C-alpha cells in the first residue's frame, strides 16, 4: 500500500500555505490599523492559526473587551473546528499516539481539514506534520510582514488597505449565498442583526465580541431551523 509520507504532506500543504500568505498579510495590516502592537499580532497568529477568530479577537482587544467575552467569542466562532477534529480523529492510523494528537490538533484549519479528510485511507502523523508545516509558517510569516509593512505605510495607503480583510470576507460569503438560500438567509440575518446592535441606541452597551456572539448564534440557529441541509460528515470550508 502506498503510505503517505512527510514529503506528501509538504506537497499538499504548499497551496494552502500560499493562500494563507495574502490573508495573514492582511490580518497583520488590519491589526496594526486597529492599534494592536505588531509583535502582538504575530503572537496571535503563532498561537491561534484561524482567520475569523483572530479578526474577532483583535476587535475585542482594540475595544478593551474582557477575558470572558474573548473566551465566549472564540468558543462560538471556532466551534466548527471541534467537528473537524472529531471527524479527523476517525481517520488517524494506529501509531498516531496522544503526543502527535496534542501537537497536530493545534493546526486543524478549514483547509488542512479539507485536504486531510480527502485522503484515501488512514493518515500517519508524519503526513500531518508535513501538511501543517508550511501553512503554519506562512500564516505567521505573512502576519509579521503585514504588521511590519502596516506600521511604516503612509496614512492614505493604510486607509485603503483597511478594507482588504472585509473584501476577503465578502468574497467568501457572497458566492455560496447565490447557490444556497440557507446561506443567503444566514448572511442577511447576521448582517441585519449586526446593524441593529450597532445603530439602535438601546443596544449601544453591547461590545463587538458580544455582538458577534449574538448575531452568530441567532442567525446560524435560524438558518439551521428554517433551511436544514442533508447532513454530511464534513462542514464546507469557510
Amino acid at each position, binding site marked *: 500500500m502506498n503510505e503517505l509520507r512527510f514529503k506528501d504532506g509538504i506537497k499538499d500543504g504548499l497551496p494552502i500555505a500560499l*493562500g494563507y500568505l*495574502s*490573508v495573514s498579510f492582511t490580518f497583520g495590516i488590519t491589526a496594526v490599523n486597529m492599534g*494592536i502592537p505588531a509583535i*502582538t499580532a504575530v503572537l*496571535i497568529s503563532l*498561537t*491561534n*492559526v484561524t482567520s*475569523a*477568530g483572530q479578526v*474577532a479577537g483583535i476587535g475585542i482587544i482594540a475595544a478593551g*473587551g474582557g*477575558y470572558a467575552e*474573548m473566551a465566549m467569542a*472564540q468558543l*462560538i466562532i*471556532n*466551534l466548527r*473546528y471541534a*467537528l473537524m477534529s*472529531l471527524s*479527523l*480523529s476517525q481517520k488517524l492510523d494506529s501509531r498516531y499516539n496522544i503526543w502527535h*494528537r*496534542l501537537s*497536530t*490538533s493545534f493546526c*486543524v484549519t478549514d483547509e488542512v481539514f479539507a485536504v486531510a479528510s480527502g485522503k484515501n485511507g488512514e493518515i500517519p502523523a508524519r503526513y500531518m506534520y508535513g501538511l501543517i508545516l508550511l501553512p503554519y509558517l506562512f500564516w505567521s510569516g505573512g502576519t509579521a510582514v503585514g504588521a511590519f509593512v502596516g506600521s511604516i505605510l503612509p496614512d*492614505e495607503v493604510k486607509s485603503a*488597505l483597511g*478594507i*482588504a*480583510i*472585509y473584501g*476577503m*470576507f*465578502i*468574497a467568501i*460569503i*457572497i458566492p455560496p449565498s447565490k447557490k444556497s438560500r440557507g446561506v443567503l438567509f*444566514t448572511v442577511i*440575518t*447576521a448582517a441585519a*442583526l*449586526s*446593524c441593529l446592535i450597532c*445603530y439602535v441606541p438601546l443596544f449601544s452597551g453591547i461590545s463587538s465580541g458580544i*455582538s*458577534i456572539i449574538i*448575531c*452568530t448564534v441567532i*442567525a*446560524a*440557529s435560524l*438558518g*439551521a*431551523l428554517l433551511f436544514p441541509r442533508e*447532513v454530511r460528515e464534513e*462542514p464546507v470550508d469557510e
Partner: protein
Amino acid sequence: MNNTVYLFWSVAVMALVTYLIRMLPLAAFRRKIKSKFVMNFLYYVPYAVLSAMTIPAVFYSSNGIISAIAGFVVAAVLAFFERGLLTVAVCACGSVFVTELIIRLTGG
C-alpha cells in the same frame, strides 16, 4: 490595567480556547455528533460570523465612509461574479484609494 498584561492575557485566553476546541475532540472524545440541528448550526456559523463582522464594520474601515462604500460595492460586485479572494480584496483597496484621492483633489 497594565496594557502589556492585558494584551498577554487576552492572547492567552484566545489561544487556549481555540486550542482546546481543536484538541479535545481529536485527543479525547470519540462520540459522533448525531444532532441534525447541531450539524446544520455549525455549517452556517462561518457565514454568520463573517457577515456580522463585515457589516457594518466595513463602512468604517477607511478614513471616510464614502470611500468605504465605494470599496464595499466593488467588492460585492466582484464577489458576485465569483472572483478570487485576492482579486476582490485588492480591487476594494484600489477603489478606496482612488475615491479618497478624488475627494482630496476636488477639495471635498
